[in-house]
Structure formats: structure tokens, C-alpha cells
């Protein structure tokens, strides 16, 4: 629909697009309207087609202006609250997954747990504990000297734990010599 620019147009003269826009808006002087329509007809655009385009463009402009005025004059109040309420209702109305029913009621679960605990204790008492008893204390479990007191300062008593012997020795020094005949009698 757009004809080529007139070769006679100079920078001071309005372009074809400007004249066409002015004609659609009804702002083109009558003296130039006939020249513009004649120029369009030369390019194969009929007068009826031009009128139809002008009408459609005006309707579109009116519609855009009304919509812009409506949104500017009546903005949505409390938009965040509205959005939150809307989301809440969507979530409420959304289908929820059904809870899987318990295989066993709670009471049976409790008794089952207690029975398992008792069975484990019985197994420990019957199998593990006797095995531990047969092994006896671990090798590193020594007897212990908790306290040692001597009668006077010439006697000393020191606890010793020889490595890898698993015995406890109270090493006493300073006791009086015992003659052989006295010791063995």
C-alpha cells in the first residue's frame, strides 16, 4: 500500500507517510488531499480500500486509547494481596495426594518393636554374652594397686605393670632380710 516516495519531495516538504498519517487523522488540508488520493490511485490503490484502511486504523486507535485510560484511571488495588489470595485458592482447589494407609496400626507397631528388642536381648544374653564370658577379660585388663602405705620411710612400695605380662606387681623395697632357716621353717 505504501507508494514509493515522490521524487519531487524535498526535505522541506512532508513525506508521503506524514501526509498519509495526517489524512487518516483528518488533519490533511483539502488542497493536498486530492493530490494524495490521486498519487495512491496511480499506484493501484482504490479509494474504497483507502477509506477502509482509514476506518480500521481509527477504530484501532480509539480502542487503544480507551484501554490505556482504563488501566491508568482504575489500577488494581492491593495487587499483592489479591495475588496471594489467588494462589492460596489455587493451592486449596488443587487435588492433594492421598496419604498412604499404615500397613499396621500404631499399637501393633509398638508391640512389634518391643518384641524385636526382647528378641535381640535374648540373643545377646544367650549367644554373645556367654561367648564373651568364655573369653574372659581382655589381656589389657590388669589388676590395679589402688593404694599402698608403708610403715616407715625406709620401706617403699611401687606398683608396676610389666608390658605384655598381664600381671600387676607391687615392688616393695626396704623390708628386713629374712634368714633362710627362718623363711623355710
Amino acid at each position, binding site marked *: 500500500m505504501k507508494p514509493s516516495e515522490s521524487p519531487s519531495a524535498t526535505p522541506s516538504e512532508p513525506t508521503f507517510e506524514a501526509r498519509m498519517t495526517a489524512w487518516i487523522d483528518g488533519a490533511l488540508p483539502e488542497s493536498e488531499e486530492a493530490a494524495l488520493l490521486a498519487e495512491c490511485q496511480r499506484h493501484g490503490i482504490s479509494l474504497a480500500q483507502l477509506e477502509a484502511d482509514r476506518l480500521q486504523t481509527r477504530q484501532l486507535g480509539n480502542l487503544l486509547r480507551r484501554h490505556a485510560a482504563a488501566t491508568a484511571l482504575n489500577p488494581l488495588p492491593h495487587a499483592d494481596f489479591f495475588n496471594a489470595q489467588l494462589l492460596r485458592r489455587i493451592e486449596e482447589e488443587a487435588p492433594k495426594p492421598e496419604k498412604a494407609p499404615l500397613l499396621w496400626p500404631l499399637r501393633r507397631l509398638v508391640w512389634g518393636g518391643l518384641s524385636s528388642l526382647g528378641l535381640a536381648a535374648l540373643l545377646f544374653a544367650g549367644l554373645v554374652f556367654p561367648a564373651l564370658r568364655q573369653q574372659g577379660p581382655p589381656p589389657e585388663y590388669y*589388676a590395679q594397686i589402688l593404694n599402698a602405705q608403708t610403715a616407715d620411710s625406709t620401706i617403699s612400695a611401687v606398683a608396676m605393670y610389666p608390658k605384655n605380662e598381664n*600381671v600387676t606387681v607391687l615392688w616393695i623395697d626396704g623390708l628386713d632380710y629374712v634368714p633362710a632357716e*627362718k623363711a623355710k621353717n
Partner: protein
Amino acid sequence: MRIFHRSKLLLLGFLAAIVFPLSGLAAGDVVWSALIYASAEQTPLPPPPEIAAYSQKLQRIFGYNQFQILNQHREVMDRRSENWLIPGNGFYLHVGAQQSGANYLLKLQLYQDQRLAVQTIALLARQSPIFLRGPLSSDGQLIIVVAVQ
């Protein structure tokens, strides 16, 4: 009601299984104590059977190779606490033993010439004997062994 009755039986069985093995820990223990004369010999005699299990340890710790039992005592621990004496000539040991869990708490009093020379409190564990290094005597030494058998 039936479930409750079954649970009672289960609880009783559980308690019995736990309590009876634990209570049998110290039943019938024997605390053996001995006064031993240790010496270094060219041709040592074999150790008496009572100290055969300890002779190697005695040899490594005290350096002697022959051991003779001068006196000994076997005390069956059928009561919670027991007392006994290992007499020697001018040298003797008084032992007081009391059960302490699976072990025995000992009070050992070493007398020399009617005088208390050393007193010690010791915890005697199973398979872990206590050796007391006593006075020198002749060419050797007196040693006291206390053990659970």
C-alpha cells in the same frame, strides 16, 4: 487381654535371660594366695603345679628360675567378703577380699616381726594376678602371689 498376658511372659523371659547370666559371674571363684621362695639355681627344680602357670612370668619379672611354695591358701569365695592369713616365720600376710562386680577388692597387710610393714588396697582381676616382691632371704627372695582361679 491376651496380648497383655503374652507381653508379661515376654518381659519375664527377658529379665531372666539378663539377670541369671550376670548373677553367675563370681559364683564359686577361688582366690589363691601363696608365699613363694624364689632363687637362682644352676639346675632349677621344676615349679610346683600350683605356680606352673605363673613361673615364666615370675622368672621374667624377678629374674629367678626356681620357685618353692612355702605356704599357700585357697579361699572359696562363697560369701561376699572373706579374710584369711598366710603365716610365715616372722613374715606373714593377711588378706581381706570383697567382691566388687566381677573383680575382688583386696586389702593386703604384710607383717614382719609382728609389725605392719606394708598395707595396700588392690583390685584383683580375673586372669591377672598380683605379685608382691617381699624381703630378700638367703640367696633368693620371698614373693607373694594372689590370683583368681
